[in-house]
Structures are given as structure tokens and as C-alpha cells.
């Protein structure tokens, strides 16, 4: 059994570029390759680059069953979220200034909404249910006459739960409210059919799906047509919605990554689910171990677990042979426990004790075996060190103690 240490188990933070993708991208950079500006209309260099970008656009559209004309290139899902939410808010503000989102969204959505609040918009932040999913009745009850947009993620980045965007789309369309979905974590993992789903805008990222960092896309529905106010002004690229010279090699990389995702999604999903289940089965009989978020409505790539009475950061340190995270990479610089887990109503202790394992295309069975042994050993060791574990074993209710907050 051979494993290369450390083992990468943080695929939800980013994925390695698939070698097939990297190989293809290399042909779009140098003098010998297709390096032209896709917007150059006067020569072959430009035409070839334009052709490459359009072919890549078709691959993006094909993965989600959309028209290539509905795909706008961006620098990543954060930009796509900004363009979708601010773009809609600024264009439709005469019709209303109310937006609905959820407390467990990615910061790219939450912080964009905060900015709109500073500009005079009103935002409702829905509470998720304890399983991490929102209650559709509650969503509908919060739609008002002046609501212009609902923004909800497809797959949560921390706990991997999958929202029923098809059902949400029926509600928003019936109320004539636009629906934006951040799908950064779902492409290549969950089937998306935008002909059927009543989603108006959808954000994509390349680097969560074995493509390069620095490129993403926004789906903008044409029928019924969705209008956006551009956030980036300049040469009028991407039909005026997002100016800036297209990064040909990046677009090609994302296109190739999404083409592969479409072809391999089913078989890959099954393989990864078997690995994730193996990981969970290998640790679930330990005492005081809890899965965060719904285990059924969840992508196979994610396992978010709280090891009670063990603090997450010290566990990550103990598990240094496997690269994992507590919560999302975007917030792991702070000492606060995950805002996502807190929104689920998890106790602070359990939120402090959580680890996100996210696996993917290059995870092997040997990696999982190694991880299970390491987790069992290190959690046991840290519990030997934990006064809280002592108290739990002595039958003391930790909630009965008057703790001195600091």
C-alpha cells in the first residue's frame, strides 16, 4: 500500500489541474501556439484564438445544457457572483430593492449583499434548517412585492449539501423574481440542466473542477432574458457584460475541464462516493463523532465531521499528513468557528471541533485507509489531552459549568 504524503483531501478548496487540461492549455501561450487576442478580427492569430474560446464556451454550456451565448467569461466564481448580484440589483433597482439569500452562502455572495445594503438595498438572510438546507416554504414566505433576486448556492462549500434548485426555481419564477445560483462546488458533481431548471443566473469556477485558477463563467439566461448592469467597463467584450481581453489559455483550460467533467461525471461520482462512504464507515463508530449537514442530500466528495472534545486546529496539526481544513479556506485565517456550522445551530464546541475532508479525482483507496488509521490514532491522542473529554467520561454535563469566557 503506497501513499504519497501529505495526502491531499481539500478538493473543495481547489483541485489540481487535470494533466489533460494542462497539456491542452500549453498550446495557447507561445509564438508557436495560439497566442492571439480573441478580439482581433483582422488576422488569423485572432481568429484562431476566438475559435478556441468559442469552442471552450460550448463545453461550458454543454455541461449545464445551456446555449453558448448564455455563457459570459469571468475571472472566477467570486467575480461571477459579484456580476450576477450587483448587475441585477443595479439594473432592476427601479422595480424593487429587496434580495433574499441564506446565512450559509459563500462570502462572495454574503459580502456582495452587504455592499448592496450599504447602497440602500435590503437583504433577507434565511436561516438554514439543522441539516443545512433551506425550507422552501420559508423562502416563499419571505418573497415580497419588491423582491428582485434570490441568490442561493447549489452545493455548500463547507458541508457539501445539495440544494433543490429545480424546486426553488419554480417558486422564484412563479413570483417573477430572478434566481441566481452559485454552482462553483457543483459542476462535475451534480447534474445541471438549465433547459429544465428555472435558474436565471449561475456562477461557475474552473479550479474546483480540475481546471486552472483565475477563470470562471456566469450563465445569463436569454429566454426569458435577464439584463445586467456591467461591473467591469472597457472594450465591450462578452456582449458588454464583462469587458477585458479573454485569457485564451484559461478559457481553453476551463472548457477542457468541463468537457472531461461531463464525460466522466457519472463513473467518477460513483467511485468517489464509495471512497467517501469508506472513510465515514471507518470513523463513525468512534465516540462523539458527528456529521455536519445532511448525509443524503450531499455531494459524494464531502465529509464534514465534528470530533467532540477535540479542538479543530490542533486536530489539523495532528493530521498533518493529510491536507484538510476546518471550514473554508477563505475564512480559515480567522479564529472564529465556522459561520456555516453555527448557522446550522451547532454548538460552538462542535463547530470548533469540525474538519472538512473533501476528496476527488486523484484520491485512492490507500489514501482513505491511511487517513482512517491516522484519524483514529490522533483523535484518541488529543482526547487523552483534553480536560473536556475527562469531564465527559466522568459524566459531567459541560453545559452545567460556569465557564469564564475570554
Amino acid at each position: 500500500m503506497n501513499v504519497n504524503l501529505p495526502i491531499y483531501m481539500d478538493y473543495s478548496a481547489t483541485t489540481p489541474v487535470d494533466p489533460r487540461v494542462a497539456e491542452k492549455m500549453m498550446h495557447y501561450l507561445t509564438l508557436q501556439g495560439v497566442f492571439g487576442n480573441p478580439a482581433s478580427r483582422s488576422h488569423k492569430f485572432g481568429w484562431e484564438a476566438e475559435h478556441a474560446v468559442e469552442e471552450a464556451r460550448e463545453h461550458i454550456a454543454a455541461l449545464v445544457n445551456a446555449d453558448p451565448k448564455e455563457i459570459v467569461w469571468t475571472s472566477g466564481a467570486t467575480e461571477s457572483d459579484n456580476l450576477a448580484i450587483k448587475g441585477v440589483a443595479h439594473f432592476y433597482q427601479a422595480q424593487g430593492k429587496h434580495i433574499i439569500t441564506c446565512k450559509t452562502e459563500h462570502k462572495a455572495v454574503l459580502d456582495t449583499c452587504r455592499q448592496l445594503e450599504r447602497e440602500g438595498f435590503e437583504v433577507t438572510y434565511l436561516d438554514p434548517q439543522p441539516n443545512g438546507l433551506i425550507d422552501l416554504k420559508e423562502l416563499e414566505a419571505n418573497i415580497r412585492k419588491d423582491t428582485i433576486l434570490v441568490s442561493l448556492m447549489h452545493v455548500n462549500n463547507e458541508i457539501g449539501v445539495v440544494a433543490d434548485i429545480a424546486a426553488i426555481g419554480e417558486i422564484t419564477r412563479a413570483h417573477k423574481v430572478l434566481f441566481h445560483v452559485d454552482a462553483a462546488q457543483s459542476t462535475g458533481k451534480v447534474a445541471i440542466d438549465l433547459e429544465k431548471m428555472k435558474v436565471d443566473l449561475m456562477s461557475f469556477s474552473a479550479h474546483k473542477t480540475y481546471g486552472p485558477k483565475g477563470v470562471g463563467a456566469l450563465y445569463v439566461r436569454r429566454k426569458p432574458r435577464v439584463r445586467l448592469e456591467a461591473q467591469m467597463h472597457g472594450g465591450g467584450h462578452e456582449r458588454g457584460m464583462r469587458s477585458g481581453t479573454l485569457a485564451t489559455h484559461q478559457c481553453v483550460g476551463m472548457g477542457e475541464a468541463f468537457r472531461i467533467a461531463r464525460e466522466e461525471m457519472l463513473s467518477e461520482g460513483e467511485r468517489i462516493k464509495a471512497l467517501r462512504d469508506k472513510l465515514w464507515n471507518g470513523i463513525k463508530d468512534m465516540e462523539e463523532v458527528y456529521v455536519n449537514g445532511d448525509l443524503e442530500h450531499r455531494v459524494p466528495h464531502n465529509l464534514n465531521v465534528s470530533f467532540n472534545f477535540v479542538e479543530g486546529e490542533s486536530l489539523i496539526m495532528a493530521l498533518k499528513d493529510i491536507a484538510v481544513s476546518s471550514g473554508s479556506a477563505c475564512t480559515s485565517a480567522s479564529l472564529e468557528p465556522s459561520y456555516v456550522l453555527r448557522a446550522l445551530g451547532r454548538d460552538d464546541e462542535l463547530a470548533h471541533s469540525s474538519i472538512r475532508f473533501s476528496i476527488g479525482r486523484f484520491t485512492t483507496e490507500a489514501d482513505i485507509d491511511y487517513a482512517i488509521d491516522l484519524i483514529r490514532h490522533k483523535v484518541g491522542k488529543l482526547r487523552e489531552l483534553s480536560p473536556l473529554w475527562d469531564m465527559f467520561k466522568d459524566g459531567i454535563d459541560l453545559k452545567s459549568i460556569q465557564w469564564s469566557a475570554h
Partner: protein
Amino acid sequence: MSYSEKVLDHYENPRNVGAMDKEDTSVGTGMVGAPACGDVMRLQIKVNEHGVIEDAKFKTYGCGSAIASSSLLTEWVKGKTLEEAGAIKNTEIAEELALPPVKIHCSVLAESAIKAAIEDYQSKNAATTA
């Protein structure tokens, strides 16, 4: 976050892990922090008739720096008088372990833990002699 070698050493080979009988009058117990904040330290000292700390034990729930701060402290207080141990400053711990600014609170917690343990010992013994 990268840790200093000293933090890693204490974290991987923590000194004086364990528990003492907290009903014993020669034992002082200090428990500080809160689970909700992500740090709880329990520090125990055994004091002889000359007021010298003969032994120290700890258990800590917290990050690597919190574990290292309490482990280091148990090494430092052994053989010290209560007065000397009570004079240990968090800045000395932080300096010894090269704690980054975001982890200074771990050394503060360790200082509170030894103070609480001394206080517990003194209050127990004031009560028995009174």
C-alpha cells in the same frame, strides 16, 4: 499557519500530561477558558509543606499553541515557590515559544491557569487552617 519548533516539540511530546486528585489539600487546580472559545486549560500543582511546587500536571483542549503553552508552564513551575510561579508572565511564555500575535491569548490563558491553581491551593489551605 506555521508553528515554531518549540511549539511543535511541546505539541508532539507534551510534558506532564495528566490529572491529580483535586480534593487533595496539597493540590491546587486551575481551570480556565471556555469550550465555546475553543480553549480550556486545566493546570494542577502539588505543593509541599515548604510552599514549593513539587509536581504539575495539565490537560488542554485547544490549538497547538495552547497545548504548548500549558506544557511549557508545567515544566517551568516545578521546583518554584508559589510566589515565583505566580510571577510568571504570559510574555515570557510567548517569547519562549515564539508565538505569533494571533496566538498570544494562549499564553495569557496559561498565566491565568497558574494563577487560578495557586489561588485554589491557597483558599483550600486557608480554610483548613482557619
